[in-house]
């Protein structure tokens, strides 16, 4: 049997260490998990995301106390009970709505930071892939949540998005009806998306967050120059007291204190939105109850889905679906499409820098067009931007193949 110190006080560090190995755990996961010094506030986005997820979880739990997953009751349980009767019910709803919207803004910043600094390359592929899985699951989480208030946008977004699964000319309407549990979105549809939204998908998200953190541990986070740091050597220097000379700092408490500062600034903005500017996260059309006999004059998804929605629109049905499908999965393959040997910020990588900015601008243009009605010049612009997006994949392969080692 292992040795236990008779004199250790119950629940003291030593007592816990002998039973759970907490000292080792703390070292591996926090006080000796080394973070490069040469990074900036963009590296705080990951913890900002984790904190925002925490807020969604807490506000969601309180919404769940009065929400009724029933096609006849859902709308009133949200818009009447939670918003007007429940004490501070509006607060949870606004936190949840604003959180669901802002979390995507931060996800996009986080992703583009990774692309800019080449943080998906050479040993960091799994970080990127687990991050993309989080993105996809978050998208499903947001979509399923959007069904719950059972307003007009809920219903019609549910109709259009589930119809995507008919696969165009494949005419797989059986599959669509199977997903819905009905010919049209109805009660069976609402209750199953409720299950996904409050249990299954949050569980998957929590698992993926753990995986994402796990994938970071061995390769460590990248830095502003893409420098390959000898973490063991740098850690020795730090532990020997040569903190100035060392290129790293421990995650806890040094890096975390910077994270928390950024979070503080972020939460001021976040709660400003929650209290004074929540309107952007609440589509007015969704304040009309679901009506299967009336499509709203314009339907469009929440802003964070607009770019991929716009890729669907300018083509005919089959081509649109194919383009849309490619757009959904293309980013997963980024670490393997990028053939360049360099891990460096985009501004040091020649053509890649141009590629990066074209991608960013194209996605913003697609987002704006997605919100505009599908008419005239917007159709043409949409077609061009969608084609540019699709061509960026092969272009990246060629550009990075030609890139010289720095």
């Amino acid at each position, binding site marked *: 049997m292992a040795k236990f110190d008779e004199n250790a006080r119950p629940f003291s560090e030593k007592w816990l260490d002998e039973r759970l190995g907490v000292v080792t755990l703390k070292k591996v996961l926090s006080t000796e998990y080394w973070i490069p010094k040469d990074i900036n506030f963009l590296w705080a986005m990951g913890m900002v995301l984790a904190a925002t997820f925490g807020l969604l979880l807490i506000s969601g739990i309180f919404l769940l106390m009065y929400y009724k997953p029933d096609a006849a009751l859902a709308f009133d349980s949200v818009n009447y009970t939670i918003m007007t009767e429940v004490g501070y019910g509006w607060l949870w709803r606004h936190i949840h709505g604003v959180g669901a919207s802002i979390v995507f803004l931060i996800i996009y910043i986080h992703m583009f930071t990774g692309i800019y600094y080449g943080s998906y390359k050479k040993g960091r592929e799994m970080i990127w892939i687990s991050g993309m899985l989080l993105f996809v699951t978050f998208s499903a989480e947001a979509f399923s949540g959007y069904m719950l208030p059972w307003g007009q946008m809920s219903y019609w977004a549910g*109709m259009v998005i589930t119809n995507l699964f008919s696969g165009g000319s494949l005419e797989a309407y059986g599959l669509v009806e*199977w997903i819905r*549990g009905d010919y049209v979105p109805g009660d069976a549809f609402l209750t199953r998306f409720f299950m996904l939204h409050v249990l299954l998908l949050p569980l998957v998200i929590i698992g993926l967050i753990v995986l994402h953190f796990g994938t970071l541990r061995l390769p460590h986070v990248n830095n502003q120059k893409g420098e390959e740091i000898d973490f063991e050597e740098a850690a020795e220097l730090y532990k020997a007291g040569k903190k100035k000379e060392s290129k790293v700092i421990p995650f806890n408490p040094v890096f975390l204190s910077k994270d928390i500062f950024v979070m503080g600034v972020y939460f001021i903005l976040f709660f400003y939105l929650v209290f004074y500017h929540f309107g952007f996260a609440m589509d007015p059309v969704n304040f009309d109850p679901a009506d299967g*006999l*009336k*499509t709203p004059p314009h*339907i469009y998804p929440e802003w964070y889905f607009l770019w991929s929605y716009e890729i669907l629109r300018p083509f005919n049905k089959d081509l649109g679906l194919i383009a849309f499908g490619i757009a959904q999965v293309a980013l997963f393959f980024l670490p393997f499409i990028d053939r360049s040997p360099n891990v460096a910020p985009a501004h040091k990588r020649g053509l890649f820098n141009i590629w990066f900015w074209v991608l960013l601008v194209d996605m913003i243009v697609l987002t704006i067009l997605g919100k505009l009605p*599908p008419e005239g010049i917007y*159709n043409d612009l949409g077609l061009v931007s969608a084609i540019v997006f699709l061509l960026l994949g092969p272009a990246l392969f060629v550009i990075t193949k030609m890139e010289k080692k720095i």
Partner: protein
Amino acid sequence: MKEQGRRDFMGMALGGFTALGGLGALYAMKRSWDPLPSVKAAGFTTIDLSAAQENVLNIEKWRGKPIFVLKKSADMKADDRDVVVGSDRFHVTIGLCTHLGCIPAYLPGEKIFRCACHGGEFDASGHEIFGPPPSPLEIPPFKLEGTTIVLGEEGPEFKKMKDAGLIA
């Protein structure tokens, strides 16, 4: 060696039964997602066509879906997909855009349907004339009984359209 053989056997036996149980569980899960019998048995809808006015779109409901009923005016082109009652011609379709399922709006002035979602257009007979919709508006199974039409049942007129490949 002998030990190994026994372990392999146990492993395969366990794996086999686990796979069997897993398949069973997957089937049960699939069936739980199926539409309920009560949903599938959603009955029939009867519509009286005699009250309809020319060029005014009526929207009825069948299996939760909107049904377009449009009495054609004399200047609208006759079409093989029309439902003919005496001397009157009716456009009867499921009012969901064949692109992704929004309800197109009827513009009585232009005599076309326009879908706001992605800009698709259909003429008064339901044929796609612009945008992403890949096929005409779908005709629901129907049966004529005098001046009323029963949706959900396949009458001879419907079967004839179906055989001619005109349904959607």
